[in-house]
């Protein structure tokens, strides 16, 4: 098939230089994502908007409306992001990829 000749040993494409893999290392860990860091960042971000923001709204007839809007936005957006990240925290199954996609991902993303 299309990629039959593009084995890592004989690959001549300039975009996929075969990287020497030391044994024991499970692969590139450049994309290892921690869980704590995004949680801290986003909690602080939406916390600033939802909890600290209301103190800085100038007095006026619309103060109540603006405060409600800030708090509601912070709650909704934070909740939505949290659901998205919690759902992916411990996946019970993985993505099913076509073999072409596997080649592509292997050589372009890693």
């Amino acid at each position: 098939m299309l990629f039959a000749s593009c084995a890592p040993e004989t690959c001549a494409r300039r975009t996929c230089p075969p990287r020497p893999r030391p044994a024991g290392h499970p692969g590139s860990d450049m994309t290892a994502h921690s869980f704590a860091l995004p949680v801290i960042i986003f909690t602080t971000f939406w916390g600033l908007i939802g909890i600290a923001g209301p103190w800085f709204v100038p007095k006026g007839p619309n103060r109540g409306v603006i405060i409600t809007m800030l708090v509601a936005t912070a709650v909704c957006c934070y909740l939505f992001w949290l659901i998205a990240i919690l759902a992916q925290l411990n996946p019970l199954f993985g993505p099913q990829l076509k073999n072409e996609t596997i080649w592509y991902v292997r050589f372009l993303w890693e």
Partner: protein
Amino acid sequence: MGSLFRSEPMCLAQLFLQAGTAYECLSALGERGLVQFRDLNQNVSSFQRKFVGEVKRCEELERILVYLVQEITKADIPLPQGEVSPPAPPLKQVLEMQEQLQKLEVELREVTKNKEKLRKNLLELIEYTHMLRVTRSFVKRNVEFEPTYEEFPSLENECLLDYSCMQRLGAKLGFVSGLIQQGKADAFEKMLWRVCKGYTIVTYAELDESLEDPETGEIIKWYVFLISFWGEQIGQKVKKICDCYHCHVYPYPSTAEERKEIQEGLSTRIQDLYTVLHKTEDYLRQVLCKAAESVSSRAVQVRKMKAIYHTLNMCSFDVTNKCLIAEVWCPEADLHELRWALEEGSRESGAPMPSFLNIVPTKETPPTLIRTNRFTEGFQSIVDAYGVGSYREVNPALFTIITFPFLFAVMFGDFGHGFVMFLFALLLVLNEDHPRLTQSQEIMRMFFNGRYILLLMGLFSVYTGLIYNDCFSKSVNLFGSGWNVSAMYSPGHTVEERGRMALWNDSIVRHSRVLQLDPSVPGVFQGPYPFGIDPIWNLATNRLTFLNSFKMKMSVILGIIHMTFGVILGIFNHLHFRKKFNIYLVSVPELLFLLCIFGYLLFMIVYKWLAYSATTSREAPSILIDFINMFLFPTSQASGLYPGQEYVQRVLLAITTLSVPVLFLGKPLFLLWLHHGRGCFGVSRSGYTLVRRDSEEEVSLLGNQDIEEGNSQAEAGCREVTCEEFNFGEILMTQAIHSIEYCLGCISNTASYLRLWALSLAHAQLSDVLWAMVMHVGLRVDTTFGVLLLFLVVAVFAVLTIFILLVMEGLSAFLHAIRLHWVEFQNKFYVGAGTKFVPFSFSLLSSKFSCDDGVV
């Protein structure tokens, strides 16, 4: 807190307007738009009210103004639209204005009539000239056709024009000449032939230029005809036929000199007529121009006057005091301004005694006023479309400002589409004051009124699009995917691991169509993508399996939180109306019911996310089955989600089962106990009587004073009212219905929130199909031909995106978001049985002339 949370407190006031100042006071009130008048003369027919004559006069003036506007627009004179609207005219000026307008109308009508007459005259003369010219050529032509005149002696050329020779033959040769319309010419000729049996000779010629028909005003083609006949009777018949076909008949000159004379006379007359006509048109134009300057401001003034008289008709006339009494609903915050307006009106009219007001305690439900600005107006109108809030109840619009666009965005979530929607809304918002937009019609008007809603919807859709990682159905890889394909290959693992797990190598990959990554293999899954859905899912064939599970759970979580929030808002209502028992007997059982069942479901979802991973995936129970088993108590209990689950579930079920009877019976029994135990409680249910001060001495003594103790008097009066009949059966029935509705509604409403999942799935799939079928085709083609094809493909892609994905899906998601708010959220706390406060304000009068204001 802004007044958007609750409607404003209102009071009922009586205005005492002195006879001379009533008009000016109402004018001042109308300019400010402060109060709503109540109709005190409801059983009086509209023709018997006091100010019917004045209203009729206003209508007469309006009629004249409409006629003027018609004439002005017919003459193509521009009407200046004034920015400032003038106040209603004082009574002294009204008579003068009326005279002016009537004189103007009479003059206009006369001048127009004269002009018409002159024009008709001119047309006739022009036709006559044409006819003379053309028939002259007939006669000249006929000379060549000598054979037709065989019976007559040959005449010399000059004598031919002298028709008196013909008389020698004993038969009188007559001529009828004139013009006939092109369409009727054939029928005319046939009729003549049939009737006169060939004793007439008809000659035709078409007129080159089209002339105007004086009756209809259209430009049509005419035929000039000349009929020559012998004998009187035939002459009569011919004349009758000419009449019948509406021919324009003109006298035919018998001699050449006569013809010349007539022609000269005609040309001078035509010249004169042209000059007169021009002068008349100039004069008319002058008059209209002068009128155009003031006609729009006059129209506004007349409309305001009419509105004032309509309102005066609603007041009752207190004969003994010689003043008008009006009852108005006024927001308490505006009482001061109301007093000031009355003073101003009294001052303007120069009356000796000023008008004043008097606050009246009442038990009737006032109308609901919620002050909005142009941003909050759209959201308030969404809530009002369901039902205007009851007096002083919590207004859901305040929260709808954010939750509505958010729920829309959950169903619409696409970064690209959201951004386009945001840009469109931004365009509308930045050009708010553009006149073309403010006066647009129908569909464009709807989009314009909802521009802030669209703006927020677009913004939130951008955010949810980023979280769903969906931009025109493609994902972006910003932070690097958390799934590592290389780790699935054997070389990266120890021998022992290779034995345990199914790992890949090149030949396996080459020969299998699809392969699934296994998160239990170390190194394959390296942590959740920090912002949104991992981009690798866009490349996966089992994408929907993962997304469906994620979106369903997300919908249920959002729904339960939304509904809980609704119940909590109900608590605020109970606190405000000082019915604390409602909190303990209604709101708390409702909350317990909701949270024990669905809050527990929420807990199970989050627990499963946190506690179970790929290594334990074989034992991960299905949440739905566990949830159902909670109620069924199956004998063979498979291992639950967490240790001690059975015990916890039993406790929760017990709480739920206990809260249901409390919800059913708690409030009716409590009210029954109060009724018997505490005596007269004055339960507020049915209609009330208006408590009114009608002692006249008190009225004249009070004058301009406010009744300081008005509010507390109202409460004392409340307790003195004889208690209404306490209908236990009805209360019990109402509460039972409410409870059943609530309990069953909890389940169905939670399931209803799954539409968030359904619509977002539909949107994603439509977007995907559009890409695969349209854009993908264009991008796969070879470069030489592909560049041209890509133009076409991108155009088709853009058009389909806008119409199908933005308009159709947008409307669909909008509708479903509205449904979720109106039904699932609002039926937890909102009653919506109020009436809207409509103040007497001149700015609410329509800006165009409307013919549907009746006589009164």
